[in-house]
């Protein structure tokens, strides 16, 4: 009996040290895939006057991998798109209990869109600052896999989209980002044997191994309306179009919308059978020289060009005038 007590005492001491070494990690997303749950019981009892401690076998159960992913929009207000593309930011979270990578697919075609954007760039926020930094953040091919993401960890993904010329001011369009587990996806409960971390089995979780989110862009564009009118003064003081009559053309550029007309240029060709009257070009009543120089206007042998630059929607109308004489 004495010997037995000694034996078991030593055994328990060793096992307890092992138990302590396991520690108590934080189980944020649940017990990590591949974890071994090791359980054994300790019993102490009396036989007559002697006290004996005995330990059961250690039963081991391995935790398999659950595949999970969530995509959330980080921008909830509409992002303006127009002259410049829009950058949309999404967050992808590995909600599974094992490291996984996710195929990232941006899709500009969403039912109900007033217009369809063009997907220019898919990028992963390498430096984690939430802002797309060209040349710093990792640009990937649409549909390609992310880096491996630890359980409960997140990445930010940028979709950069441009509006088509057909988009009119105020129209909206949604853009979807879908993240799908590279380990496997499908009906929850689908088994991918041996595909988990370290070769454990992987099961598709409630997310189906895929997640997506929508963000919205709103067209912020400028519409420019040009109105051309003519005034004729004939050599006799009347308004008849005869040889020698002088025609004053007036072109009014009216810019509307919430966006900006970038690099707006007004060009007009001289009508056949007329001759431009040098030095008659004006912009908003101020004379412009004909030469291609510092001012906005240039008159060539065939027509005039006036650079109006970036004109915000709703700003004052721009009026260009010039004169020709009927041959």
């Amino acid at each position: 009996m004495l010997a037995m007590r000694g034996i078991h005492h030593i055994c328990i001491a060793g096992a307890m040290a092992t138990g302590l070494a396991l520690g108590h990690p934080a189980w944020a997303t649940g017990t990590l895939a591949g974890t071994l749950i090791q359980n054994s019981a300790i019993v102490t009892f009396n036989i007559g006057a002697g006290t004996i401690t005995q330990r059961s076998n250690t039963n081991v159960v391995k935790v398999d991998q659950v595949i999970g992913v969530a995509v959330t929009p980080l921008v909830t207000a509409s992002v303006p798109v127009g002259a410049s593309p829009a950058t949309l930011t999404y967050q992808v979270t590995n909600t599974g209990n094992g490291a996984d990578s996710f195929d990232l697919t941006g899709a500009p075609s969403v039912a109900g869109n007033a217009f369809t954007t063009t997907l220019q760039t898919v990028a992963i926020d390498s430096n984690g600052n939430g802002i797309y930094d060209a040349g710093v953040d990792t640009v990937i091919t649409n549909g390609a896999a992310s880096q491996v993401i630890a359980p409960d960890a997140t990445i930010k993904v940028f979709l950069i989209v441009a509006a088509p010329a057909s988009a009119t001011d105020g129209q909206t369009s949604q853009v979807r980002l879908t993240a799908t587990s590279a380990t496997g996806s499908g009906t929850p409960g689908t088994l991918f044997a041996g595909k988990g971390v370290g070769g454990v089995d992987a099961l598709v979780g409630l997310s189906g191994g895929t997640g997506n989110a929508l963000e919205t862009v709103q067209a912020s564009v400028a519409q420019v309306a040009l109105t051309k009118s003519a005034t004729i003064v004939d050599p006799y003081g009347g308004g008849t179009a005869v040889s020698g009559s002088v025609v004053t053309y007036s072109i009014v550029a009216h810019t509307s919308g919430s966006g900006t007309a970038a690099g707006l240029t007004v060009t007009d060709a001289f009508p056949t059978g007329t001759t431009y009257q040098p030095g008659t070009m004006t912009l908003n009543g101020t004379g412009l020289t004909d030469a291609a120089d510092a001012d906005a206007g240039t008159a060539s042998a065939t027509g005039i060009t006036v650079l109006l630059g970036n004109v915000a929607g709703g700003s004052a109308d721009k009026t260009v005038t010039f004169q020709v004489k009927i041959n």
Partner: protein
Amino acid sequence: MTMINFKGMLKIGVVSLAALCVSAPALAANDPLTLVSKQLLDKVTTVDGKVTHQIVDPSVTHDKVVPGSHIVVVLEYHNNLAQPISNFEYKDPLPAPLMLSDDSAGEFDVSVDGGKTFGKLSNLVVTDAKGATRAAEAGDVTTVKLVIPQIAPGASGKIEFHATVR
């Protein structure tokens, strides 16, 4: 037995049991008790809205154990001796991934301090890093304990509690 024989047994015993502690089940033939620890899976299936529970041994059925799985921790015991065993005190230091169920927490004496002190869960408190205290919850339990006053010669029994994989 002489004293010399005893020493010999002790030496051999220590070596073999030390090895058993880290690998195979400790089922020495001459143990007073046979102790078999199992972790079974409470497999929940829902078909047409009807929920059925099936207790399976995942090491046999290869059912998957994942976070949220319900585990039934079982200890089967058998008194191998021709005499009674008294004051049988069972302790199971919960593996960290397992969280004791509320129902089981009510059936056992439990510890929330790694087995230093035991009591009914409703009487226990836990202290956080800032020194604030709160009532202990089933999730705080680190060890479960049960005392059986006497196990008759040749008698068998089973102790089980329910837990969830964190």
